[in-house]
């Protein structure tokens, strides 16, 4: 994932956390969904975002929350799809 794309992703997640009333910062390896910082509806909005921005086809994947739980997880997912 390009640096620019990653910072855009972080910006997206920052906005989602703000909407959730969570002003705290987050590290790239930090769990966002399984830790409860973001809820399942936020996860679905993220899915739409990733489908639109990174052309991730989730229907071709066996979806699991671990795939998108942190910035690092999302980066690994996007990179693995790009390398196919």
């Amino acid at each position, binding site marked *: 994932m390009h640096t620019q794309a990653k910072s855009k992703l972080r910006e997206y997640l920052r906005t989602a956390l703000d909407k959730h009333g969570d002003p705290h910062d987050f590290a790239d390896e930090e*769990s966002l969904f*399984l*830790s*409860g910082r973001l*809820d*399942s*509806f936020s*996860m*679905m*909005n993220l*899915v*739409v975002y990733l489908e639109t921005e990174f052309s991730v086809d*989730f*229907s071709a994947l*066996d*979806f*699991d*929350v*671990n795939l998108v*739980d942190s910035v690092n997880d999302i980066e690994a997912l996007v990179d693995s799809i790009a390398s196919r």
Partner: protein
Amino acid sequence: MTPSAAGASRSSDTSRLRRFLAIDEREAFIERAQTPLGQLAIALIALLAIAGHLGTWQAVLAVAAAMSAVIWTNARAAILFSATWLMAFLETGLGGNDTLDRITAVLHQEQLPDAAAIPLAIGWLLLVLLGSVVALQWVRRKPQSMLARRPLVTLLALEALLCGVASLSGVAGLPRAMLWSAVFVLTPYIWFLPYAIVDQRSRDPNSALTQLGTLRPFWSPSYLPFGKGAAFLRKSLSKTPAELAVTQLKAVKLLLWANALFALRDALIWLFNDTLQIPRLGDAIDAFVAGQPYALSTAWAALILSMAKLSLQIAMWAHLFIGIARLAGYRLPRGSWRPLESRTLMDYFNRFHYYFKELLVDFFFVPTFFKVFRNHQRLRMFFATFMAAGVGNALWHFVRDIDLISTLGLGAALETFSSYLVYSAVLATGVGLSQLRANLGHRPSATLAGRIYSFCFVWWFVTCLHIFGDASRDHTLGERTSFLVSLFGFI
């Protein structure tokens, strides 16, 4: 004093109160909570806060298990498993749960001795435990099996099959009682097992012992997975002694808050139902149906009071369950988070009953979202929301009261459920539209007037809808609809 000065003073009082209550943010408390004396104080306060609601032995078991899990961290999985299943077997053996009442009702129908209820329940509970072990192993070995890919659908199909066989006209006596007992014992686990099965298929699954320990965990022996499954719990586990101390202090606060809500509920009942003679909602509908309706203001008061009691009931039990889980070190979000501050129906759905919403999203919204209308984003979001807030919601409540099929028959059970179906459909449509509006960028106004409008709209909507969602099955859809219309003076 000027209005602005008065406002500032009120705000200052509020923040002073907040600061006073924020013991989980004060270093002195956090340090003391980590000492043996601090741990003892936390355990004792928790015990007192829980015992009056869960029962004495259940409270002792829950607090002992929670505190043991944070002391002997290496044995956490074993403690979780032992406490969870000890609670389940003891509750059943001592005759302390609704499963036994349901089995007893079927035994009566079949003219069999009541005494058979406990052995039947214990036997099936043992089979559910063994079946869960086998199911988790099966899923690990066969990740592409139906059970692994669609755990909830498979379990619901199993439940439907058992109900179907038990309802056959040729099945009677002990076989019928045994089949229905199996259904009653299995039913609550249908909503827990899918989390364990999904986790088994993940890249880094929890141990089977941990998974089994989260099937109706000792902190919430209910039909709803408070704390979701083992994967969610593992991520939310406190990592440092200071973090654990903060989590346990938050637990104590939440348990005390739950008690305050219990007291508030009792006070509302005493003041409005007992002293001011405001009827219960069911009685108000009964009176309307009998042609002797209460005055409009009294009928509205009955409705609003019923909604207030429901909101308090959801919050106080959720706080109690999550409080115990926090005591065990899990930094879980609250089960009900300031629902009065909901700005939209979507927001209300999120705040009112968080773990119910999460269950519906995880097992109804997500699968639908990935399957249908992928090229029509708005329709996709609306339909998936409808599947969760409507179909999932209705299904959960219907399955929860599955014993009605055994006592009334399928047709009558469905008939008494018709008003809840309408409730689910209208709620789902409202939440779906609210979700769409949010995605289109509509935000409720942040001004005072905007906040008041949002509050009035959300709570007016859900309070009116509550007439149909009321848990009793005593009134028909037509009676409830007429009662609602009468509240606006049209009948």
